[in-house]
């Protein structure tokens, strides 16, 4: 059945089309997925992914995770207890490691990382998972920084995930006012020059009435601790990474002015749940100018909302973010026509991610480059697509998350605000390639921790190596295995018992060069 013609003129079968969308809008096909998508219609599947209904498979998975039942306040309490336990253990790292509070917190962190990997494997609404990873990476927050150790789960669940297909503007504002981002990029420490917090003002009032040396030293202590000016960290990354892009035409003065606008955006201390709070005393009340636009003085938090909306709607933002989406869905150098179509859809839909993705998918170029398998998989994409390809299932055991970390992409642990790179330059090197081969061989032998699978349903045991390799080819490489690869695998399995031969063929298939591309 020929349904769609690529720009190059080669006709694609609907099975080809199904494989393209499953490799790009999802984490690769599971056994039977291609047939399922073909029979329901490729575009119908795409539309369903763009307007997802309740995902039962994901809900079942999530119910196994303890961390899903804990709210930010619960985690905050555990964080405070963990910090206290560490303080008491002081330099004794063994005592600290064995403390129940420390151990529980570490387990929860591991579970949290595994939840991301497990959802990517198990969820039916695959596009939601792909975009969750994309936005979490775009608005990167490092799990290792202070209060972010307990703020990240609510950042992922409440800030990012509900908005992955919504309007970019809403996502941007949600991240800006998220406690996790404010801690990560220090905005909570950014205050107007000379601002005096109420506690200090009160202490000073008291000391005016009754002079006492003790009160004076208390004031000195508070003074030493409080921030005494703006911190540009968030404002800079807001321009460079989150919105306009580094060539987006802003200046150092714009960064400083934006930082002034965002003074006062902060959080409560962890002991009080670490929720968003706007602190009037810390806000800079003066007039500001960003990108030539005047921000009238004295409007408090409203100035920040105005700034974020302006940046979200800026043409440079549309181009920057759409290009990144195209790199994610297509490859390192996405076709210009696809980027243009995405930007146009952004304009028409006021920044609806759903419409931008839809516009990218319906360009002829999206289908034309398909045959090239243009994108080198990131470690997350490689591990998840491998597990899906062999029909594996996963749960709370952190094995898959550990495998992804070994390949160089420990989840939520990128300390720098750029997030992980999407392009092949960042991932294709000799050590990482060996790790991929190791994971492939482990998985095929049924020895990748945390993965349940049965190769028998994928490739039934057979005495005939050729038909066995045919099945492996169809299951893992859409029947596109090169004659050379077939020859190499054929030689390797020669003389092996059928079960071993099958594991070896699957391991070589997953670890070989073709499966690294999507």
């Amino acid at each position, binding site marked *: 059945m020929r349904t769609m013609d690529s720009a190059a003129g080669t006709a694609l079968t609907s099975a080809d089309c199904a494989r393209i969308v499953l490799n790009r809008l999802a984490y690769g096909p599971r056994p039977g997925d291609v047939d399922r998508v073909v029979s329901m219609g490729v575009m119908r599947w795409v539309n369903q992914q763009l307007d997802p209904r309740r995902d039962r498979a994901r809900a079942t998975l999530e119910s196994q995770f303890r961390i899903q039942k804990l709210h930010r306040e619960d985690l905050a309490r555990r964080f405070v207890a963990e910090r206290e336990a560490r303080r008491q253990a002081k330099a004794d790292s063994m005592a600290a490691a064995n403390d129940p509070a420390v151990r529980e917190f570490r387990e929860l962190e591991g579970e949290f990382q595994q939840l991301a990997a497990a959802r990517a494997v198990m969820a039916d609404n695959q596009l939601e998972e792909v975009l969750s990873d994309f936005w979490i990476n775009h608005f990167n927050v490092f799990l290792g920084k202070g209060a972010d150790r307990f703020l990240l789960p609510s950042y992922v669940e409440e800030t990012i995930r509900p908005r992955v297909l919504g309007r970019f503007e809403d996502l941007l504002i949600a991240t800006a006012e998220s406690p996790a981002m404010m801690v990560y990029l*220090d905005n909570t*420490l*950014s*205050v107007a*020059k000379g601002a005096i917090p109420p506690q200090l003002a009160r202490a000073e009032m008291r000391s005016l009435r009754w002079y006492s040396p003790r009160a004076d030293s208390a004031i000195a202590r508070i003074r*030493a601790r409080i*921030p*005494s*000016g*703006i*911190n*540009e*960290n968030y404002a*800079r990354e807001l321009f*460079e*990474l989150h919105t306009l892009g*580094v060539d987006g035409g802003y200046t*150092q003065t714009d*960064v400083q002015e934006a930082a002034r606008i965002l003074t006062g955006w902060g959080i409560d201390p962890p002991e009080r749940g670490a929720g968003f709070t706007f602190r009037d005393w810390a806000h800079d009340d003066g007039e500001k100018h960003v990108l030539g636009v005047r921000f009238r003085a004295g409007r408090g938090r409203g100035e920040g909302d105005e700034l974020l909306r302006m940046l979200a709607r800026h043409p440079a933002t549309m181009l920057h973010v759409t290009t990144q989406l195209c790199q994610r869905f297509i490859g390192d150098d996405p076709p210009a026509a696809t980027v243009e179509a995405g930007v146009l859809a952004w304009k028409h839909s006021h920044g609806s991610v759903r419409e931008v993705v839809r516009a990218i998918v319906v360009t002829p170029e999206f289908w034309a480059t398909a045959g090239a398998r243009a994108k*080198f998989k990131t470690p997350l994409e490689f591990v998840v697509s491998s597990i899906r390809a062999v029909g594996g299932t996963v749960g709370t055991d952190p094995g898959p998350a550990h495998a992804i970390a070994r*390949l*160089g992409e420990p989840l939520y642990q990128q*300390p*720098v*605000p*750029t997030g992980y790179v999407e392009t*092949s*330059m*960042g*991932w*294709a*090197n*000799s*050590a*990482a*390639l*060996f790790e991929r*081969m*190791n994971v492939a*061989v*482990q998985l095929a*032998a049924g020895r990748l921790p945390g993965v349940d699978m049965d190769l028998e349903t994928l490739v039934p045991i057979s005495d005939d190596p050729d038909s066995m390799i045919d099945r492996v080819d169809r299951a893992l490489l859409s029947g596109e295995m*090169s004659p*050379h*690869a077939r020859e*190499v*695998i054929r030689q*390797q399995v020669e003389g092996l018992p059928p079960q071993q031969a099958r594991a*070896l063929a699957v*391991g*070589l298939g997953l*670890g*070989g*060069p*073709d499966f*690294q591309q999507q």
Partner: protein
Amino acid sequence: MDSLRFAPVSRRAFLRAGALALVSLGLDPLFLDRAAFAREPAAPGRRRVLVCLFQRGAVDGLSMIVPHGDPLYYRERPRIAIPADQALDLDGHFGLHPALSGLLPMWRQGALAPVLAVGSPDLTRSHFDAQDYMESGTPGVKSTADGWLNRCAQHAAEHKNTVFQSVAFGPQLPRILAGSAPALAITDLRAFGIRAGGPGVRDKLTRAFEQLYNESATGIVASSAAEGFQAVQTLQRIQPAEYRPENGAEYPKGKLGSSLMQIAQLIKADIGLEQAFADAGGWDTHIAQGAGEGQLATRLRELGDSLEAFALDLGDRMRDVVVLTMSEFGRTVAENGSIGTDHGHATAMFVMGGGVRGGRVAGQWPGLDPAQQFQGRDLAVTTDFRDLFGEILVRHAGASDLTAVFPGHDASPDRFPGVMTA
């Protein structure tokens, strides 16, 4: 020691006197060897090695090399300045951060040159861009595909390329080594290659994957795989798991110490290493950076102690090695509202090893006066990083054509900061 180069004594006499002086200071005599560092060609079978350490996150140069003789420094940094009585004085005006005491032995032997106010002509304060420029070697030009260290290897015709010619420690190949000359990324020499299965299975799998990648892979995937398979063969010969540091060297625990230990091992194995690269992160001290002790001090201690162990471990092999530290930019002269520092302009770098004209602070000091500060907030750049790197490439790594390594830069020896003996 600088003046001794003009002293009318024989080299041998100087060495003896120097040895006594150092022993009386309580220093390990093993370092004495290195007082005799000369720029002779490397011994047969040995190669000159350049080790680059990237302090990602923009290290505060004013805390590494402390201008303790400048009252403005203390005025701008009331809470984070390194007190003058804690800085390890170098020349009466500048001193090392006290956590860098591991570098003192090299300094005393004249094998360490701290370089002031190094940086990029580009104005960006973005970590990402500034690192990119420092690694591509083309500030302001984003389209440069390869890194300067790789370009240097491309043009070095002296030796035949070997797979271990350029090695970066870490899970990813850094931008500085991207390019057509072979380069390896290795996290741990002992765990490099196929590990699944027993020894027999391992070899079989390795051969099978090698055949798959030989024929099918293209571009960067193909070249990375080919280099990987060659490296596995070499490593089987040198047995990385058996390595023991020499001369009582103790590397600090952590990534940097482990990387430097493995670099030392590769140097001693004589398998063709010429360029080594390692990362040290954690320098982006926007909040609570500390002074003599604290966050930044902890990172500096790891740096200094790792380099001390490295020099000790290499012993007389250090004469073939130069270590260069670099960071994408420096930090604001004044402390910020959170007892830290924000992104600035110039920073400081270290050059250490054989042939280094050390024992003196190199680079021109631009001053801390607000009128002398760059954009009224940062230390100004007086040495373009390409002039520093270029000098090391020419005088240590044997580069003859700097225009190929730093295209678009007029690399004249007149602008070299003079960190190497000519």
